[in-house]
């Protein structure tokens, strides 16, 4: 009786898992960046482990039902089979290569930003994100956490000529579509993590250092950046709109934002 129950429950778990995944209600958000490769690497990995999950659990279900205790039954004395073990190790290693090789290939692209990427600074603090764009000179001015004050929220070093034309945004991240972007991420106080699900990428913001990642927004629209590293009681509210728009709209928006020269006083 228990063999049948165990068999049925294991089958139902596999079916239930497959149905829940196949329903598609909860799956990746629509991709809005160049990181289709990340999706591909992720999906290959999920496919490999999905197959292993189904096969192993179905095998388990079959075995517990087929070899349930019977009157006068006796187990088969079978302590070892080196050849079979080597075969299974080989199959496992193959599966791992299949999912790891493309993963490492995509990762090497992920950590090498293109030369023409536009640099934008992301600053995390309890509990909001703000942004700094390079002005017409295309360069972000130096910053120093020791210079942070109520009048200089980014800690911009005003002695750096490249800093004067930097543009500040305290609420929204606007991005020109199809332009590679390199985010330089800082934090003022504690760890945060800058995560835009539709773009697939995330990276921790760490006080005392600058962290980076790059992407190219490929779809116009409004998305959301959230915080993915516990940062105190406002962690779950720490978010920011991300607007990917045509370059001319982006330039218009940027022109309306305050510059360092206009707002930051020593």
């Amino acid at each position, binding site marked *: 009786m228990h063999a049948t129950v165990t068999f049925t*429950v294991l089958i139902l778990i596999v079916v239930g898992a497959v149905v829940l995944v196949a329903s598609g209600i*909860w799956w990746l958000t629509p991709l809005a960046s160049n990181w289709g490769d990340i999706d591909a690497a992720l999906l290959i990995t999920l496919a490999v482990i999905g197959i292993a*999950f189904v096969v192993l659990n179905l095998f*388990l279900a079959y075995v517990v039902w087929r070899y349930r205790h019977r009157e006068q039954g006796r187990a088969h004395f079978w302590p070892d089979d080196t050849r079979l073990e080597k075969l299974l190790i080989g199959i496992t290693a193959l599966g791992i290569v299949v999912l790891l090789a493309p993963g490492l290939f995509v990762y090497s692209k992920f950590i090498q930003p293109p030369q023409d990427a536009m640099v934008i600074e992301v600053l995390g603090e309890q509990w909001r994100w703000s942004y700094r764009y390079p002005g017409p000179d295309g360069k972000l001015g130096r910053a120093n956490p020791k210079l942070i004050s109520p009048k200089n929220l980014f800690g911009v070093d005003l002695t750096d000529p490249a800093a004067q034309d930097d543009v500040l945004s305290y609420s929204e991240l606007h991005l020109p579509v199809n332009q590679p972007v390199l985010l330089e991420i800082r934090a003022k106080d504690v760890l945060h993590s800058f995560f835009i699900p539709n773009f697939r990428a995330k990276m921790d913001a760490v006080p005392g250092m600058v962290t980076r990642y790059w992407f190219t927004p490929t779809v116009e629209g409004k998305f959301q950046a*959230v915080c993915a590293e516990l940062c105190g009681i406002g962690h779950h509210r720490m978010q920011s709109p991300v607007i990917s728009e045509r370059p001319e709209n982006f330039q218009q928006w940027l022109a309306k934002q305050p510059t360092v020269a206009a707002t930051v006083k020593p």
Partner: protein
Amino acid sequence: MPHDGPQSFWTKYIFSQDHKTIAIQYTITALLVGLFGLVLSWLLRAQLGFPGSFQFLNPGSYYQILTQHGMIMIVYMLTAILLGGFGNYLIPLMVGARDMAFPFLNMLSYWVYFLSVIVLMAAFLVPGGPTGAGWTLYPPLSALPNAAPGSGWGIKLMLISLVIFIAAATMGGLNYVTTVLQFRTRGMTLMRMPLSVWGIFIASVMALLAFPVLFVGGVMLLLDNVLGTSFFIPAVTLFGQQLPREGGNPLLFQHLFWYFGHPEVYIVVLPAMGIASDLISTHARKPIFGYTAMVIALAAIATIGFIVWAHHMFVSGMNPYFGFFFAVSTLIIAIPSAVKVYNWLLTLWKGNIHFTVPMLFGIGWISTFIIGGLTGLPLGNVIADVPLHDTYFVVGHFHLVMGVAALMAIFGGIYHWFPKVTGRMLNETLGKLHFWVTFVGSYMIFFPMFLMGIVGVPRRYFDFNVLQYLPPQTGGLNLFITIAALTVGVAQLLFLGNLIWSAMKGKRADANPWRAATLEWQTPATPPAHGNWGEQVPTVHRWAYDYSVPGAAQDFIPQNVARTSDPSPVAHPQERGAQRAG
């Protein structure tokens, strides 16, 4: 008999140096601490299933409960029950010793552990409450004043408690390892030890090497918090105020933490693997398949387990080129882990499976370890970790692999050894109910979390209101998970009730009710007396898995039965070489 002699109540039950009493003390304490951790998880699920319905659940208390739930379950429950509970009870009995190598140190280990629990619990009573900086205690959040809830007394007590726990774990670990190395009885070669002992032994070695690193991180964090040093704290501006700190490196703490933290996963999983192996073999009446491979796999997991720690830090801001190394080392660990899964399945193959409660938990272990282990692969495959890191995918993964799976082995082990410990059987009907609710319920709780993680729901969120990209059915899903979690919780109360009732009123047990071959079932008395073995310690003649030996009268031959009485020459695969059969 060196152990006879008058014993007062105090030396027999409280300050006992008998490994069996210490094991029971460890187990009861860890179960009570676990019950507390379970109740904390209900509160978390209450908030997520019914957001805003409970006044006392605000972001501050939520993050405190979250932090304490994690720390309590991983360190004070799982580690304590597997090493302190199972390790203490099983090692001397399974290797044929009268007690541990250092009984006094063993007693001290329990009482120091008890003290660490008291300090841990005291944090709930101090002003500001326990720390809410997450169980990983990442600075600067954990170290700075007022950055997180419980940043006053809470974090200090947490770190002090951890330092005390590490002292307890070290005393215990020295005992477990020394006893296995020095106190094995005649004939008990290393390669004749049951896999439970192997798992606990290797995990204890790992604990001895990993906990000191947490100790260092903890002490430095405590100084950063109390005395304003800058080990981990760079120049920061908190609430608009510059703090007089400079130059510290938050990633340094993460490296120290995970150098301990990842081995810690295996400190929990390896004993569970060993216990599950013995449950599956005994109740399927079949030798464990590929014993040598199982031992090698345990050792391989432990060794490689020390060079994978930074896979917890793929998006931490560390040098991105480390990602290649740690992704490869992490996925290599999947191979010995997979070998173990195959060997459990092949142990069941052509077995004679008795659907006892321990067997059910053994089957539950295999299934939950499969899903929990497999979902580690995307997280180890560095680029796939980028979208999944710190989402609910991670929550589902680690709860299944080191929470539910480990508990399957622990529960199975308790149902299995309870008759030896108490001389009474646990109630089987309640046991089966406990198993089915826990097993099915755990899938219902944690499987949906994988999908939420793929959507991109970050973990450690008090509510999901701000997330604009969630499907509308997500509220319903959270309610479903909460109901499943509360149901599974009730089943655990049933289990505790069964323990108490059966210890007093349960059916009397035979000395060897499961007809098992390992030494602990061959003691002259049940429960075993002080000194375990009566006049003479047993002599071991064979490995631990002589089940269903062809030609043997019974379907098991205890380890202390001499070889000459074998009806058949095929009894010890190590000695006659691997036998191939179809």
